[in-house]
């Protein structure tokens, strides 16, 4: 227990396409998290900012950008980037600082303002950057990679486009009452199947949008938390693992996998290793979970995650979904927040938003989407260039 930190406050700026500065969303989320913790900004001893790559220099130094906007206090700062896993890295930096005894109160903030449409590589002529080259030589957008995984699921496990659509239907129901969700509208199977194909077999409503949004958490030592709250939510583990060589699954933004010709593939594939490391650190097993927030960049990827986090055997994810086991009221609700299907992706904020949801669920404050009696939850995510992300929270 000594290796845990408390989540004393959480806050978000609603997801949407607001078109304003990411700083505004981050500050709004930070203020909400501080208010939730019952603390003042002056109480914060360390700020961890999740960087954004699409908002110029202030985005590369997000920690300081947020600190300045909240009002310089001399607070110590760090800014981190790990693609979609950025938020988990920021959480882990703050957590490590607290566990090392270097501070008692840390604020973690991530926010983004996103352009419309496909994510594009940053500008200029950069023939040594694989993220630039994959667009140039292959036209390999993010949905191309999602489509490869989805088609593979169909060919190997017999998944159908209707299975993928059912994920969207479920998540759209989950997010109906979430005040921070961007899309709060029930979607039918027919509506998903009637939406245009983007990257076959995935349709527009199978693929998550890009969104503006901000999320923040106040992390403290357990000792500090006990003086301010009764039975606070704690973080039992954070996993920020990278792949082991050779990584034999094709991943964004790569042109090829590692070769397994000389060194055999690891027993535990990368995506399975993300949650596994967190389970080991927390001393829990998949069966202990009450809920999971997983990174549904596409509907088909949510099904992959069921297997990656060990709540389904390979090939059983569709069965779990069809039986309603991952729906609210089922055995292990997945994405009770509504997931990316209802939020869209605000990259550096997303893993922090996942922890906000876990915290509300474990406190019993997730009105309209509450997993009854939730005591243990996991949030998982993966960022391109080999970033794993998993956070286990409990109460």
């Amino acid at each position, binding site marked *: 227990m000594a290796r845990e930190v408390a989540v004393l406050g959480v806050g978000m700026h609603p997801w949407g396409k607001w078109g304003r500065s990411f700083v505004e969303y981050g500050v709004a989320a930070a203020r909400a998290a501080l208010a939730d913790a019952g603390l003042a900004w002056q109480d914060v001893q360390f700020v961890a900012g999740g960087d954004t790559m699409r908002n110029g220099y202030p985005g590369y130094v997000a920690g300081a950008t947020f600190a300045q906007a909240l009002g310089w206090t001399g607070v110590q700062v760090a800014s981190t980037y790990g693609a979609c896993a950025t938020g988990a890295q920021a959480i882990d930096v703050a957590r490590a600082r607290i566990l090392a005894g270097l501070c008692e109160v840390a604020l973690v903030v991530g926010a983004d303002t996103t352009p419309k*449409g*496909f994510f*594009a*590589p940053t500008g200029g*002529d950069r*023939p040594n950057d*694989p993220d*630039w*080259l*994959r*667009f*140039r*030589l*292959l*036209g*390999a*957008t993010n*949905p*191309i990679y*999602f*489509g*490869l*995984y*989805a*088609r*593979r699921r169909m*060919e*190997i496990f017999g998944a159908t486009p209707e299975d993928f659509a059912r994920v969207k239907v479920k998540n759209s129901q989950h997010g109906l009452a979430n005040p921070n969700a961007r899309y709060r509208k029930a979607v039918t199977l027919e509506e998903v199947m009637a939406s*245009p*194909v*983007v*990257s*076959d*077999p*995935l349709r527009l409503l199978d693929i998550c949008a890009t969104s503006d949004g901000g999320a923040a958490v106040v992390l403290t030592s357990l000792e500090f938390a006990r003086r301010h709250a009764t039975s606070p939510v704690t973080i039992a583990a954070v996993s920020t693992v990278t792949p082991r*060589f*050779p990584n*034999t699954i*094709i991943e964004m933004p*790569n*042109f*090829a*996998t*590692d*070769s*397994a*010709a*000389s*060194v055999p593939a690891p027993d535990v594939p990368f995506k399975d290793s993300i949650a596994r490391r967190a389970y080991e650190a927390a001393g829990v097993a998949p069966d202990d979970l009450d809920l999971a927030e997983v990174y549904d960049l596409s509907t088909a990827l949510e099904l992959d995650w069921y297997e990656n986090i060990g709540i389904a055997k390979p090939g059983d994810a569709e069965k779990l979904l069809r039986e309603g086991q991952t729906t609210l009221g089922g055995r292990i609700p997945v994405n009770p927040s509504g997931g990316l299907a209802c939020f869209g992706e605000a990259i550096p904020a997303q893993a922090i938003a996942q922890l906000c949801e876990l915290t509300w669920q474990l406190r019993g404050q997730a009105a309209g989407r509450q997993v009854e009696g939730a005591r243990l939850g996991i949030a998982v995510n993966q960022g391109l260039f080999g970033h794993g992300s998993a956070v286990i929270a409990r109460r």
Partner: protein
Amino acid sequence: MSAAKQRVPAVEGWFRMDEAEPRLLGVRCRSCRTPYFPKEAFCRNPACGGAELEEVALSRRGRLWSWTDNRYAPPPPFVAKDPFEPYTVAAVELEAERMVVLGQVVAEADATQLRVGQEMELVLDTLFEDETRQYVVWKWRPVRSSAA
């Protein structure tokens, strides 16, 4: 006439510019024999760490691991046709190299007939062109079975 245009690789040194017998060009570690594509300056096997890598031509044929397509024009630096023409992208597993390599599928292939595990082969094809040049890239093409 496009036939008069000069054909140049869209990227230098990634494939053999041989229309009849194209090959992807990677490197192989002299110590642990692990191949890499694209090329690397150092071996990435953490148990090896070799610094001497030699150029190798990868197998021309492999088996389809998965495929998908793109129905909407991607952003730059992709050079999209106007009007945009959807294209298929395949992930192909090279048996000897134990490696999966991405590539577009040639436009004339019927994507509805693709199946995981079928044999694919590397060809060269035009990626985009300007007034004077055709920029060439590798693509995957289904190998016609003898029954077809």
